[in-house]
């Protein structure tokens, strides 16, 4: 059965879409090559070997935390639904499936990265190299099963309302650490920047402290590294064997856990998933203005942001990330940077709203067949975004400016205004241009279902909104004069963006709306790209 499932997965890879997989393969192999080059330099003594441990730890961290950072993404290629009807014991089926999980881009690029252990151990002779190869494979085994188990647990959690909140909190923590985690480090390097003093504290980065490398080697992500190093140094079986046995034992336990979770899922009778919550949570948003086309769309959007599971996770994470960032910054020497959290909130708001058309899916037929509705749809989405993300980001910047009296407060408010305008107008545009098509809205009950991966759109809008946030401050500084010059620039930029971008979005929807609907009905964004090529 394992062989049959392997063949099925290979066929699915061959016949399925290749874009995302191809990108991951190329990007992953480039990163893996960098780690291998680092290991080669370390083996020659040109670089401290502890940096290889850091790289391997970060790589392993991606396996463990990746599924949490992407709560919408279901990595399984062979659908459980296809297999549920076969008269096979769930445990046997899950066990056979488990081996097919080793086939994929992730394991391939990880084994390329872990080959750095062999390079690192090579100076110890062929035996050390062979042991390092075993250590690399054992490390891969552990990482794959750690990642799969976390993904299975996350998918199970996301079926509950508490799980949705948990996923949003995890995403927010990771985003806050990613975007503000550097602030304490920067504050340590430039402690007096708030007073305009750019004196740099220079740390020594050439050699990692032994305590750090020892700690990394004791983490499960570093056991392979520890075994390879022990083999290279001829430390004997007492140092080599325990990490290898630990890798295989913990990996086997995790694989068993995954098999148990999958067998449990296969045992459940096929039925449409039902949300474990009241049907329409809370009172519906009723507005006295509901009868104009734009306010009807605003009411629909507000309800959808609050009730759609995929949008709900995004909304919560976008709302939670700025306060967490503020918390990190407040406890550093750079408290004066707090108002900048306002523009950052607009950036996050824009990032989580880049895929709304794909999330609403084939419901687009209604605006397409209603006279004048496309214009109302674009304006309504923008207005709802302004209510949920734009105005709060502006208020946050102003409140933190008032609370801290920061010298960058004016620039922060101007930046928040410009960023909010660009996010407000840019998110619907990107949602039309770069839809990450997944399961249709009618087929999604919880966020773990394939809702499309909007990373491309998010990575596109991020620098654009960030640039808009920075631009008024920079141009104001270059122009000189009083602080209101920067705010004036922000107002001008916002007005221009809000005037031009929605017109462009509307034109695109009028020209490509039916192709977008086709793409969502067929769940293939390539349909949209083909129509664009055909039109041009």
């Amino acid at each position: 059965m394992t062989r049959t499932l392997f063949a099925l997965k290979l066929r699915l890879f061959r016949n399925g879409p290749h874009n995302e997989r191809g990108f991951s393969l190329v990007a992953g192999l480039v990163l893996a090559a960098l780690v291998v080059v680092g290991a080669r330099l370390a083996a020659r003594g040109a670089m401290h070997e502890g940096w290889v441990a850091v790289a391997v730890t970060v790589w392993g961290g991606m396996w463990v935390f990746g599924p949490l950072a992407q709560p919408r993404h279901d990595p399984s290629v062979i659908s459980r639904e296809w297999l549920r009807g076969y008269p096979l014991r769930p445990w046997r089926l899950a066990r056979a499936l488990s081996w097919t999980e080793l086939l994929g881009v992730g394991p391939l690029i990880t084994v390329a990265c872990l080959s750095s252990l062999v390079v690192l151990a090579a100076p110890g002779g062929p035996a050390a190299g062979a042991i390092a190869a075993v250590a690399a494979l054992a490390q891969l085994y552990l990482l794959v099963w750690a990642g799969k188990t976390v993904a299975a647990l996350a998918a199970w959690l996301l079926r509950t309302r508490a799980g949705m909140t948990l996923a949003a909190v995890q995403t927010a923590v990771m985003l806050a650490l990613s975007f503000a985690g550097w602030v304490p480090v920067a504050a340590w390097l430039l402690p007096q920047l708030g007073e305009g003093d750019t004196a740099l504290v220079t740390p020594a980065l050439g050699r990692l402290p032994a305590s750090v490398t020892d700690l990394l080697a004791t983490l499960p992500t570093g056991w392979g590294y520890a075994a390879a190093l022990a083999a290279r140094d001829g430390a004997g079986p007492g140092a080599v064997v325990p990490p290898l046995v630990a890798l295989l034992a913990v990996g086997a336990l995790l694989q068993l856990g995954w098999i148990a979770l999958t067998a449990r899922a296969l045992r459940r009778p096929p039925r449409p998933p039902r949300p474990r919550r009241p049907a329409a949570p809370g009172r519906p948003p009723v507005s006295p203005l509901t009868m104009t086309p734009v306010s009807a769309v605003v009411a629909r959007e507000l309800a959808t942001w609050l009730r759609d599971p995929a949008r709900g996770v995004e909304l919560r994470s976008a709302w939670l990330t700025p306060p967490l960032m503020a918390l990190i910054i407040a406890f550093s020497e750079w408290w004066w940077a707090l108002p900048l959290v306002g523009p950052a909130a607009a950036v996050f708001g824009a990032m989580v709203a880049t895929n709304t058309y794909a999330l609403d899916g084939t419901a687009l037929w209604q605006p397409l067949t209603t006279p004048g509705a496309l214009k109302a749809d674009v304006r309504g989405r923008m207005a709802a975004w302004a209510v949920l993300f734009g105005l709060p980001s502006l208020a946050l910047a102003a409140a933190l400016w008032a609370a801290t009296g920061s010298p960058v407060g004016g620039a922060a408010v101007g930046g928040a205004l410009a960023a909010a305008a660009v996010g407000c107008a840019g998110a619907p545009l990107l949602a039309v241009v770069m839809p990450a098509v997944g399961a249709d809205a009618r087929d999604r009950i919880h966020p773990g279902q394939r809702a499309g991966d909007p990373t491309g759109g998010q990575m596109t809008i991020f620098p654009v909104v960030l640039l808009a946030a920075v631009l008024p401050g920079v141009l104001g500084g270059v122009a000189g004069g009083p602080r209101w010059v920067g705010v004036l620039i922000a107002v001008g930029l916002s007005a221009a963006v809000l005037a031009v971008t929605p017109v462009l979005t509307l034109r695109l929807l009028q020209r490509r709306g039916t192709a977008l609907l086709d793409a969502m009905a067929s769940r293939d964004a390539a349909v949209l790209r083909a129509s664009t090529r055909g039109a041009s």
Partner: protein
Amino acid sequence: MRAPSVPAVEVVDLTQRFGSVLAVDRISLSIPPGTFYGIVGPNGAGKTTTLTAVCGLREPTSGSITIAGHDLRTAREAALAQLGVMMDGLSLPERLTATEVLRYSAGLRGLDDGWRKRAGDLLEILGLDAVPRTLVVEYSTGMRKKINLALALLHRPRVLVLDEPFEAIDPVSAHAIEQVLRQYVDGGGTVVMSSHIMDFVERNCRRVAVVAGGRVLVEGPVEEVAAGATLNERFVDLVGADPVRPLEWLA
């Protein structure tokens, strides 16, 4: 006011290609106002493709479509204003309740306050008022068909375009939908629908087009098309059904 002789829907030489596949091959239909019109055909015949083009959800490769005298290509907004659409397998604003979806649709179309009475009637007759807090995403197939029909009727369109309105729904839901459609046609509305339910088409439609391979095989009043047999028998004759050889292993 347009002359009553203007067809409710006029399709002239409609052709639809998908790459090398010819899905619809120069189909022409002229549907008079106040007609209950059925389009029947085997799977892949081009029924849904034709209806999708009629309601403006697909740009045809060639040919023209006119709704109550308004060309869909040159006067799109005026043509769309005449239409009520119910397509199979598409989403709605899924996180709204039935009342909220109708309110949204009324707002989107800028309807006057009369929509509230019509919405209340439709929800009651179609049995959707029994689940006022249920979101559309949680609806069964039959409930989806009903809310789609309510949406299509809310603005009192002159033409209803329905794709497989009775596909995969229970007889009770089908009966409710059938009653509403009869009232609509009796009131002067035009229904253009595709269906596999020959019994329903024979019972309700005044005219029918049998489509296969992207072409109209025969079109006319149902009695003439049936030509003395049942519509189902005539359909199988027209479309052709391969004989099924006995499968010994089934014995």
